[in-house]
């Protein structure tokens, strides 16, 4: 199912973005207007403490790959399980799965590689029961590299899939 969604044309070496069934969920809401009544009596320390005390879950996970490989490593299973324990039910939150590759090989083959890597992560998340409609899959190939390098450089940082959500 997910394979069908991301099997777009790979002749072009441009990044490919697939929106998977987002519907009304992809709307961005402007922040709610702030009340413009008279300023409250000063109590800055309490306000600061309240904001600082709010715990925040991480909002990105990175998966790394061996050169030329689209196979998840054993340790990535733990990362997928972590994602499973972050994703709340019923929330139209979008998870973005963005695959990259290093610059060894042709841009076309690297785009294909980055797409297959993103697909591997997507499969792992769907296998954990996260609805497939909650993903954007982005195959970036060698465009927008995490670490800029020249051609033919096998940089480990670039052989990866970034999973982010909002």
């Amino acid at each position: 199912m997910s394979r069908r969604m991301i099997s777009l044309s790979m002749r072009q070496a441009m990044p490919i973005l697939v929106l998977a069934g987002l519907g009304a969920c992809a709307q961005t809401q402007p922040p709610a207007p702030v009340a413009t009544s008279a300023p409250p009596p000063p109590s800055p320390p309490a306000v600061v403490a309240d904001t600082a005390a709010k715990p925040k879950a991480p909002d990105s996970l990175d998966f790394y790959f061996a050169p030329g490989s689209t196979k998840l490593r054993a340790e990535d299973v733990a990362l997928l399980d972590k994602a499973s324990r972050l994703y709340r039910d019923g929330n139209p939150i979008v998870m973005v799965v963005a695959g990259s590759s290093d610059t060894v090989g042709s841009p076309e083959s690297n785009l294909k590689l980055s797409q297959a890597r993103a697909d591997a992560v997507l499969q792992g998340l769907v296998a954990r029961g996260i609805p497939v409609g909650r993903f954007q899959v982005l195959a970036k190939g060698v465009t927008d590299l995490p670490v800029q390098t020249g051609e033919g450089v096998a940089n480990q940082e670039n052989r990866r899939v970034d999973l982010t959500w909002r």
Partner: protein
Amino acid sequence: MSIAGRLPAGAAIAGLGLAFALAGTGLVGTAHAGRRSDAIAAYDHGDYGSARTRFLSLARTGDADAAYRLGIMSDLGQGVPEDATEAFRWYRRAAVTGYAPAEFNVAVMLDSHRGVPHDAAQAAEWYARAATHGNHRAQYNLGLLYSSGEGVPRNRPVAQAWFRLAESGGIPAAAEHIEAAGTRPETRGVASGRLHAVTPVAPKADTALSRREVEIVWTAPAQTVPVRFFLQVAHGGSDHGEIYADYVDSTAALVRLPAGGGAYAWRVYTVSPTTADYSIGAWIPFTVRPR
């Protein structure tokens, strides 16, 4: 407190004791249902202001689904500033009524310290509650907690039981955790009659419920021999008043309550199926308000 001995002859042996039933969502008639569908329509059209007003009004009447949706709106900043702490409060309000989607989200937020401090033990309880309603992601995540011993005792057979439920419910990743049948616990050979009793989690002693069913949750340490659990729920906490008795491989079950309310109690036997040795947990009393 536990007593070791032989399994009573009267205890029926049955299959897996997870009863799945619909959660009480506070639906009370067609007028209410109409108001809810109006609210959901407003939400789906992105009219968050109107949806929020309607959900607030419904939540005041005890509608768990409305409270859950208010949680989502605060969680995502829809019509209100994003506020995970406020989202958690709404999810929890829906969860305490037994609304499974909210129970799952409460668990995830406790598990991932979003909006609340990290608390794996409480997360495990809420995963277990959601799991009794057939939430397969909850079953999978609880399997992970029992595998690693986060918030619950590390217990491979219990983790396996949760993974099997998740796998049968359509979570393919659970299959990778399932060991071949006949795999034994790591250590064996300890004298029989020394089984550990379970630790009761929910409902706690002397809880008062006004529900159609009760999610019963316990934790269990790893045993030296393979065991099953035998859950008993009884009116007045005596064998004569038994309303539910069944074997369970996992560590939670949903039990339907008779109408009319009254004083009940639950307890769990830890049973070795091979030797019939067992250990009995104490009765945990709770009351049910008539409805």
